[in-house]
């Protein structure tokens, strides 16, 4: 390692996960509620109704529109969604990331076997 690392890997992971949680829990309730770029264009150009009149193809989203159901306080409902979303995304990404690693182990194993044969 030619460069000096300022913090340990563990500290980096804990700190960045904390940042994600802080953003998701404490900052998200104060995000702008204005429509985003696509929604704004859809509204201005008169095709927003095509989405509004369409039944969603997937109706089982547990937390639609980042509002935790049955929580009356909207800001708190957003915070809860942020907390849950941050955790779910991290867990799913780790689960997906394990697949390429497993593939690499398989590739390595077959490489060493073929090397042994020659």
């Amino acid at each position, binding site marked *: *390692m*030619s*460069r000096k*690392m*300022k913090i340990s*890997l563990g500290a*980096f*992971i804990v700190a*960045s*996960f904390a940042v*994600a*949680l802080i*953003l*998701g829990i404490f*900052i*998200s309730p104060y*995000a*702008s509620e*204005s*429509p*985003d*770029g*696509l929604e*704004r264009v*859809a509204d*201005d*150009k*008169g*095709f927003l109704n*095509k*989405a*509004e009149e*369409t039944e*969603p*193809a*997937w109706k089982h*989203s*547990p*937390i*639609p*529109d*980042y509002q935790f159901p049955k929580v009356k306080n909207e800001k708190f409902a*957003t915070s809860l*969604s*942020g907390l*849950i*979303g*941050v955790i*779910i*995304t*991290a867990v*799913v*990404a*780790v689960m*997906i*990331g394990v697949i*390429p*690693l497993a*593939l*690499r182990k398989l590739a390595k194993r077959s490489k060493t076997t073929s090397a042994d044969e020659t």
Partner: protein
Amino acid sequence: MHIPDGFLDPKNSIVTYVASTGTLGYALYKAREELDEKKIPILGITAAFIFAAQMLNFPVAGGTSGHFLGAVLAMVLLGPFSGFLVMSVVLLVQCLFFADGGLTALGANIFNMGIIGGFLSYYLLILAKKALSRFGERRSLLFSSAFFAWFSVVVASAACSIELAFSGTVPFKVVFPAMVGVHSIIGIGEALITTVVVAIVLQLRPDLVASFTGAPSLPYAGEGVS
């Protein structure tokens, strides 16, 4: 710019689904060259950070908001294939858990934000970084990250406009200037967040920035490995 159900016709849904799932399969295969056990938690926190940052809509001109996308950031930090996996996970979770982006448009959303706003922008970034190499590794990476983060949002919105037009939802000459116009403002936020985060990680742990070749890297990692 998560496309909801109802904006795309079946033809556009299917074509983008095929392109995105094909790319996803290839990325799952290729990401093995970028990842090791140490990088797995980094994958998780990058996805978590992008999810949280995407929730933070910031106001742009005239009662409109924009939010971070994160594809360029993920690819610069983790390498293009792992970065694509992270973007796909974020979009999948948003679609299935939060009804953000329609399930029939998930293929298009991954295509726009992961392939066009991701791979295309990332590889152009790497070219730009090489062209700027005389300014130093750190500066050339930060400058190209800033520009191509902005570019990624604009080009993703252009792809989105093309799909909407091909679907017969809205005429191209109506939607294209409007989408590209508003997203060229939103892209400034993307450039700011991407550059600041890359700069912070370069300060703290340069070894965790895959596109920073000045850092010690995995034997497999780096561009040009095919």
